[in-house]
């Protein structure tokens, strides 16, 4: 009975393409999205699609020399809506989608593939300068300001003699005023690091035992609240970041899902308590976080300690036979999302009844 009251995840449009898809992002304030990927012959591709009455119209098709791994609009204003991308060669490019033939900004960001990119403060005012962060296989995490050509504004990398681990994912958070800002990065050995950009120091680090595939704060532009990190071996972690105990760290919970690698976590832009995780088997799980009665308690030493709540699984659907490589919630319509999978299909999905939570 309960089954029918839950939100439904419906595949609204499915489109098969003839290249490998790596990332998809909605163009803010439009019914259009871009997909990025790699052609079989090894070149990169950016396509813009428009959703129109149950169909996808291809608006633009741009070919680039290098396969494109990831992209974001988050560091660009609503007026510009520039797409920042990271490619296989380690180049960071920013494109004006009105004229995508020549990037308006390029920087040789890394020596190796850029695995992940995130932006911040493009559309929010009073949350600091728009910045981009890139994480690469070369082990470094770099922060970029599009106004500064060619070189990063901050670099976080291991020291000369330390081992360089493959950085798989990066995310901005805690950017609630013009100074505070935090970058979280996940590595292939299970390391999670949080860098404070204001103090230019490591704020917190931990190891989750398995490679960290995806990491995301529930919101970028608020004092940091929650962080979800997904790992290999079908586990993901949810940290409550409100209270940091010097001994015990952040309170957290772990959850098993998908029976495969949890590739991705994406919070719903309209409701930060709801997020979706994407699995290696092509499944999507929709979760809701329930706060505990008290978010912090005082431990025996008289120091504050966080308390973690619990998770409810709202829905579990399989939409593809292959891992879901990316998913992006539409910032403009609740429940609408676009996702790409390694079966070379892109799907527009609708999630119903999200308004009841």
């Amino acid at each position: 009975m309960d089954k029918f009251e839950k939100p439904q995840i419906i595949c609204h449009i499915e489109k098969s393409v003839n290249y490998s898809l790596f990332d998809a992002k909605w163009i803010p304030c439009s019914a259009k999205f871009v997909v990025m990927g790699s052609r079989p012959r090894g070149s990169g591709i950016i396509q813009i699609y428009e959703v129109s009455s149950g169909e996808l119209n291809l608006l633009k098709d741009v070919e680039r020399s290098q396969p494109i791994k990831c992209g974001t609009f988050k560091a660009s204003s609503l007026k510009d809506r520039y797409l920042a991308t990271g490619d296989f060669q380690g180049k960071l490019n920013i494109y004006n989608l009105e004229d995508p033939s020549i990037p308006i900004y390029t920087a040789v960001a890394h020596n190796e593939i850029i695995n992940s990119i995130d932006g911040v403060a493009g559309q929010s005012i009073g949350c600091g300068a728009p910045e981009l962060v890139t994480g690469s296989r070369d082990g470094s995490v770099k922060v970029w300001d599009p106004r500064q050509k060619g070189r990063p504004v901050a670099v976080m990398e291991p020291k000369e003699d330390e081992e360089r681990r493959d950085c798989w994912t990066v995310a901005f958070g805690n950017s609630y005023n013009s100074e505070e800002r935090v970058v979280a990065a996940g590595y292939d050995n299970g390391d999670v690091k949080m860098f404070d950009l204001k103090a230019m120091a490591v704020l917190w680090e931990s190891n989750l035992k398995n490679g960290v595939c995806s990491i995301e704060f529930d919101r970028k532009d608020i004092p940091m609240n929650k962080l979800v990190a997904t790992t290999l071996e079908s586990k993901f972690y949810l940290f409550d970041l409100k209270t940091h105990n010097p001994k015990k760290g952040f309170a957290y919970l772990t959850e098993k899902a998908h029976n495969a690698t949890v590739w991705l976590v994406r919070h719903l832009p309209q409701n930060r308590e709801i997020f979706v995780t994407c699995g290696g088997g092509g499944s999507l799980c929709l979760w809701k976080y329930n706060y505990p009665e008290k978010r912090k308690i005082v431990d025996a030493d008289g120091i504050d300690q966080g308390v973690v709540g619990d998770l409810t699984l709202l829905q579990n659907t399989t939409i593809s036979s292959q891992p879901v490589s990316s998913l992006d919630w539409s910032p403009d319509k609740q429940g609408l999302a676009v996702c790409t999978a390694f079966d070379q299909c892109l799907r527009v999905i609708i999630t119903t009844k999200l308004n009841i939570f």
Partner: protein
Amino acid sequence: MDKSVLMQKQVRDNAEDLQKEFLDMKNWEEQMKHKDEQLQKEASGQIVLPPIRRKHKSKTKGCVMKKDESNTEMKRIKSYDYSAWDKFDADKACKEVDKEEQSDESEDERMSKEELKRAHEEATKHKNKGNIFVQQQNWSKAIGCYSNAIKLFPYDAVFYANRALCQLKLDNFYAAESDSSAAIQLDDSYVKAYHRRATARMNIKQYKEAKRDLEKALKLEPSNKEAKLLLNQIENKLKCSEASTLKKDDAQQSTIEKEGTKITIEKKIADKMWNNSAKVQSTETKNIIKPKHMKENKVITNVKDSIENRKDDMANTNIKKKRDSRIPDWLPEKDEVTVIEPIEKPPHLRSKEPLTKIPIQELEFGIEQYKYTNLVQKKDCVEKEEPNKDSVQIEEFNKKKFIQMESRKEELVKKDLVLEPHKENSCIKVSDSLKDISFISPVPKTAVQFLMNWRKNNSLEFKYEYLKQLPENSLPKIFQDSMESDIFSQIIEILSIEFIKRKDQIFRYLKDLSQVKRFRALIMFITNSDKKNLRTLFEYCKTVENVSQDEISILKDKYEI
């Protein structure tokens, strides 16, 4: 009963929900389209952003600096302390002050008010010089002066507007437009700048934009006669073009809009190029203007082509300059080298055909160079080569290739000289074999590369050279586990024929081959002739190379002989 009814209701509800969702979706799409369009039309509102993040280090540096200053103040010498003044080194102090100033400049990108004032004064001097050139109608020199002024002080609209005027006089309409735009950005009530931009835009047939500029200018200064005159002209032109377009369908309008966007692309390119260099700008913009009746698309490709051309030219001159200043001293025919001058052609005379591809081969320069130093003694022989060289000199731009060929030739000459005492003979022989061997493929990295090169040329000579260049222990790395028996026997054949003939080392090849994966399988399918060859090879190792008996016997075991 009750349950099933409830379930039915819920299924129905869900279906309804879905329907609603889809309807909602449709509405939303339309709504978004509207919003999207509006957003694109909206003018840019400047948002004040926080400054670019700077490195933490520099911040701390700043703190340290301040502390230092306070320290120096503490050490201040008192006026009545004459002995201390005697010791005071004035020059050193001056230098220190200078240094501090310099480091300040590099640290702080922003200039102080005073510096700005000074820069402005300096820039104004350049501007005045430019104005004098304008009076003499020496436009290009005037542009130079204004550019200098802008470099010194990029915040004065007058400099840009004046340069725009000069660009107009030189028919560089795109540059003029971007300059006047810059001026307007700095001072949005600058009537002259609007007027100049209108003139420029009229000349690049952007009538609507030109009209808007003039209207703005007239709003600011209603009595401006020139602007009125120009406005009349433009309105006439607009009418003409409208009349011609009216004949066609309404669909044409959309294309006009598209053209508009394309023109902006051109503008951007023009802007970008302007940044590159002012000098080249003048020719480039002409290039844009000339084919403007053609499709705009073509213009863009042309521009791109010409940029590439230019880059190439620059690259050429660079190479040439290097050679010119110091023709590599290891080149055996220093005096014979003809320096190829770059051909400066105006853009409209340039070839429209794509540039020819030059196959580039990797060359280890260090090694070649070393060989040449050895060769100097054999100059007489080299001289005999000269006539031959002329025939080989193929194309001008193949210079690099040519050098490489020469190097190969030299190498061969050297080898043959060692082997045979008859110089003349060797030379002739070399030139014969040259054609085949002149391009010995580079050292392969994979089995595929090896096989491709191996099969490219069937002559034993070539294969000998190819094998010869492989460094020791490279065979197992190249082949991994993809050695095939026919290649294996071919290598053995080459070893037994060519290598023994030249008395080269072969033991190392045998050793390498034995380390290739699946070697045992290869040995199993070996032919009788190969076995015979192997025996001769081992015999050779023993007699000529003087390899120890133990090593040979170990290897022989491996080869199962």
